[in-house]
């Protein structure tokens, strides 16, 4: 899984603080995550600035992330990044993306001042409104080890299976939250929130033995309890994405 960090103003002194604050929102999600710096905004400056990539990479490492490379830079910027030991990635942005001008980063604070950097949105642990599909690079989910949870997931607990599947043997109670980059299997009742494909894998699926959730989501698409047909409540269900919609199937 790779996260994209859009660099808007390389000279901001509070870059590190902003980033640390973002990471603090979901430390588990961001821990040691690889980051690619997106230079598209800088490349559109009339005179692209000189950027101290070494210092930036240092600040990113300090926030608990790992800067691995850059993308969408001018040749000059990309060269500077390479000299700082960073890799140059090909542009991940398909030309016809509807939201290509993505400075209006939904998750970041809408500060009137230009932001130094806003981490490109990974689908957050507790998804907010339905959002665009994450950038292509984010969809490369590396399959990790399956995480097994044998205790009930209680109100206020959050369990995240990074890079892999999650199996919950008991119930997920109201106020509890389970997330996985891969599939989520719940062998008890689901009364809290369950999120599969947390970093954008649209192939991920969600299964549970007794369906009564607060929220279910796959790859950013979600439904809250109010949007779920009453006759599905209490049933065994499987959930997947079909044609950009969340489909909840009853399992016989």
């Amino acid at each position: 899984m790779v996260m994209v960090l859009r660099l808007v103003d390389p000279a901001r002194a509070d870059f590190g603080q902003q980033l640390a604050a973002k990471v603090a929102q979901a430390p588990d999600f961001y821990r040691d995550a690889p980051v690619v710096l997106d230079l598209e905004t800088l490349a559109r400056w009339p005179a692209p600035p000189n950027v101290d990539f070494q210092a930036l990479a240092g600040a990113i490492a300090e926030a608990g992330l790992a800067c691995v490379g850059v993308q969408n830079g001018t040749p000059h910027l990309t060269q500077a990044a390479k000299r700082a030991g960073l890799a140059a990635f090909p542009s991940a942005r398909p030309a016809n993306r509807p939201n290509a001008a993505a400075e209006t980063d939904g998750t970041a604070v809408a500060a009137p001042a230009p932001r130094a950097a806003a981490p490109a949105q990974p689908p957050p642990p507790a998804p907010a409104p339905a959002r665009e599909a994450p950038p292509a690079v984010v969809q490369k989910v590396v399959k990790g080890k399956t995480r097994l949870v044998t205790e009930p997931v209680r109100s206020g607990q959050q369990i995240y299976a990074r890079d892999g599947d999650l199996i919950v043997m008991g119930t997920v109670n109201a106020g509890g939250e389970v997330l996985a980059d891969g599939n989520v299997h719940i062998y008890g009742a689901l009364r809290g929130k369950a999120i599969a494909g947390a970093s954008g894998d649209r192939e991920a699926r969600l299964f549970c033995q007794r369906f009564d959730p607060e929220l279910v989501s796959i790859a950013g698409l979600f439904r809250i309890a109010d949007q779920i047909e009453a006759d599905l409540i209490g049933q065994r269900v499987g959930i997947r994405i079909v044609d950009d919609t969340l489909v909840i199937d009853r399992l016989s």
Partner: protein
Amino acid sequence: MARVIVMTSGKGGVGKTTSTAAIGTGLAMREKKTVVVDFDVGLRNLDLIMGCERRVVYDFVNVVNGEAKLGQALIRDKRFDDLYVLAASQTRDKDALTKEGVVRVIDQLREQFDYIICDSPAGIEKGAQLAMYCADEAIIVTNPEVSSVRDSDRILGLLGSKTQRAEKDEEPVKQHLLLTRYDAGRVARGEMLKVDDILEILSIPLLGIIPENEAVLRASNTGNPVILDQESTAGKAYADAVSRLLGEQLEHRFPAEPRPRGFFARLFGGAA
């Protein structure tokens, strides 16, 4: 081996202090040397329910801060020689307690007592976390209603992560569910959650079901733990819970199935 038991719930007003007083007294009646400790600094109530509010000189905070010796702060119950109270301070707040201080005092108590019952404040913040920190066992006090059940669920999660046992990766805190203010009639009418539903959500063993009973308020007001009123349903239910805590296998007598209410009971609306 001393057993440190925290009485906790998350939600306020569910009956933690009443249950601490009743179960602590019940253990002392069974000749277990018992101390009840009030962790609700700033809102001390346990001494009232225990009927020793006029005898508090030094309190738990004084001992934690080294301003008084443990022996000076322990108040011996007038009814049972094996029962002691460690009152909370009314003039301080929860910040007056430190983790190190609490651990030191609880360890001292372990040397003298069989049972140390810690009455937790409501909430999930520092006060509640300190009350559970040293616990070997926890009694989760829950009312048969959704908000109480959810808060209990939250507390159960904290017991798995914020206690000394969790930090040291020892055997987890043993959990017991104590259902209080249970009204069989209201459950039958669907106004309260059923026992089975609560057990299904919380999935911990049931220590007892204490019926809603006017004897509880009467007991609190007179400073006599309700377990001393063995005529009352609540008193009997607490006695059963104490027996189970001591390892006896007892059927759950309460709730009785809601009896069909007779003509006069319906007419006068008296408690069944």
